[in-house]
């Protein structure tokens, strides 16, 4: 059992891990997921007492790692496959580790067989491929027959056969009642290997739940709806109708709409009722990988996507969904006006839309250049027009 409480690690001004609390229980494979640089390895190093936490603590079986009696017999770890002296043979590398814990040399040959390195045992590890290095690292972790095992990215560089082997090895170790903690940045791999998932992003805990629950919570179905291209009014009309009917609508960058909460036939009926033609209406399932990506984008991004509900009447703005206008019932905008919002404010004096718009105060000629804030009126224009329209 590994237990972290309020674990925090700062390197100077950078916070690598912040207030992380979790438990890794015996008997199951616990996956530790997060994008690169999210603090997985730092957390692993803190568990092993290599890095001192800035705040909080982490214990193994109730003891901080540094106070464990005969640590190699209780905890086995693969941190970095290449963390071996390249000039030393695989067997001698393991032998030096075995001697630390009073493990007989016989066991060294045994684990070399388990990981399939017996034929290259006496070769210098310098010439090993990444996959062979991983196997050597796994052998080192297994050496002391420990109850707690940590693996940092164990499948990196392994061939498909090796990946399958690691997957089964993890499951076997867990089924023997051991605590198995495996980090990875591949959701798909963890979905196959792990029973429980701990997901972190930017050093903070994002999710801590069984894999089954994670899958059911995150793999939501959705429908992709496309209205005729170039007819933004149709699309806006449709999204208004769909929201009224209780659906959630997310504009996609290519102009399609991602609809959740409504079955496909209902979407079709609603579109028909609103007299909107459809170019596409297709069922989709968000992959686990996608769910994981959304989750790890960071709390702020995640929330802004969620807010969409309230903003749906706003003209869809590809690239930055969610930052639309205040909720209003279906603003009847001219088709090309919302396009204004899609672009960065044009340079002063060059706004092609400035002249024809009635409220535009900015003068067209070059005299606009020296003015301190000429882009401002052009930004506000769309909302001005909506006010007028109302």
């Amino acid at each position: 059992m590994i237990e972290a409480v309020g674990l925090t690690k700062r390197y100077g001004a950078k916070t690598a891990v912040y207030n992380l609390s979790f438990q890794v229980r015996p008997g199951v494979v616990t996956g530790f997921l997060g994008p690169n640089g999210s603090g997985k390895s730092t957390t692993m190093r803190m568990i092993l007492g290599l890095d001192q936490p800035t705040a909080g603590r982490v214990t193994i079986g109730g003891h901080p790692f540094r106070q464990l009696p005969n640590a190699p017999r209780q905890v086995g770890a693969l941190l970095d496959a290449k963390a071996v002296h390249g000039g030393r043979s695989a067997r001698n590398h393991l032998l030096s580790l075995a001697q630390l814990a009073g493990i007989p040399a016989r066991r060294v040959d045994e684990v070399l067989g388990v990981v399939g390195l017996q034929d290259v045992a006496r070769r210098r590890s310098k010439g090993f491929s990444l996959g062979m290095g991983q196997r050597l690292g796994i052998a080192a972790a297994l050496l002391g027959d420990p109850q707690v095992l940590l693996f940092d990215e164990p499948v990196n560089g392994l061939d498909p056969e090796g990946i399958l082997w690691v997957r089964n090895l993890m499951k076997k170790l867990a089924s023997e009642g051991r605590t198995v903690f495996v980090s990875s940045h591949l959701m798909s791999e963890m979905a196959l290997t792990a029973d429980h998932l701990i997901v972190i992003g930017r050093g903070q805990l994002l999710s801590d739940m069984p894999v089954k629950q994670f899958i059911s919570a995150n793999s939501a179905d959705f429908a992709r709806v496309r209205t005729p291209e170039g007819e933004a009014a149709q699309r806006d009309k449709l999204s208004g109708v769909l929201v009224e009917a209780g659906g959630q609508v997310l504009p996609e960058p290519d102009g399609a709409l991602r609809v959740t909460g409504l079955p496909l036939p209902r979407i079709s009926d609603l579109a028909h009722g609103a007299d909107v033609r459809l170019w596409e209406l297709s069922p989709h399932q968000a992959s686990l990988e996608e769910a994981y990506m959304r989750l790890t984008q960071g709390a702020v991004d995640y929330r802004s996507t969620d807010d969409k509900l309230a903003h749906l009447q706003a003209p869809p703005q590809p690239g930055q969904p969610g930052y639309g206008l205040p909720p209003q019932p279906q603003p009847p905008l001219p088709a090309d006006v919302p396009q204004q919002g899609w672009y960065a404010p044009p340079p002063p004096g060059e706004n092609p839309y400035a002249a024809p718009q009635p409220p535009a105060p900015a003068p067209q000629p070059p005299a606009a250049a020296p003015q301190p804030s000429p882009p401002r009126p052009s930004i506000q224009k769309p909302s001005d027009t909506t006010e007028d329209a109302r």
Partner: protein
Amino acid sequence: MAAVPAVLQSEWTKIRTVSSTVWTLASAVIVTVAMGAALSALLKSSFDDLSDLERATFDPTFVSFSGMVLGQLAMVVFGVLVVGTEYSSGMIRTSLAAVPQRATFLFSKIAVAGALALLVGLVTSFLSFFLGQALLGEHRTTIGADNVLRAVVGGGIYMGLIAVFSMGVAAMLRSSMLSLGILVPFFFLISQILSAVPKAKEVAKYFPDQAGSKIMQVVPDALGSEKAPYGPWGGLAIMLVWVAASLLGGYLVLKRRDA
């Protein structure tokens, strides 16, 4: 708690299973003995060209140790690599995950490597002495003469301590390249040059190699070298202070910093 004998055994396995151990220690022996022999032979043939002062303070024992100036560099490399490769390879994390008690880890490593360096140093200094005396002809001395045995054993201790000092520095700097880049020029150039510069040589007298090498002299201030304000044992004590300081520094760095 990893037991000390287990850690010592493991460190011995680590040291004997890398080839850098063999070639650094072998070159320490060969370079020191060969260069000592060559200079002994050279001085025998050019003894009459020496100045009166140099002839009056002629120290056959010290002459046979002339190769130490170069040979100690191989000891520096050995000491640096023993500690430095743990960092450059990343092995340090594996090692410390297995031996969380960092003092036990570091001092076991240094004890094993230091003992080996001392042993090789003693072999080197005895070989250098006997070969050098054989080549010095009528200017030779014998192992039974006053203070000669102290100088020969001292030469071995000196080489061992140079290696241990380098291990401490490498543990402080946590990098083989950086440690070698500092230690080799220091012992080979800076210390030698400063000891010839007025004023600066007053300071240079207290450098570890300058102070420690006094133990190898049978005749005080041999061959017209600078007078030192301390004797052979005093010099060795000064060197020991340096070694202790580097070990303490190395330990504090290992203890405080994240691996």
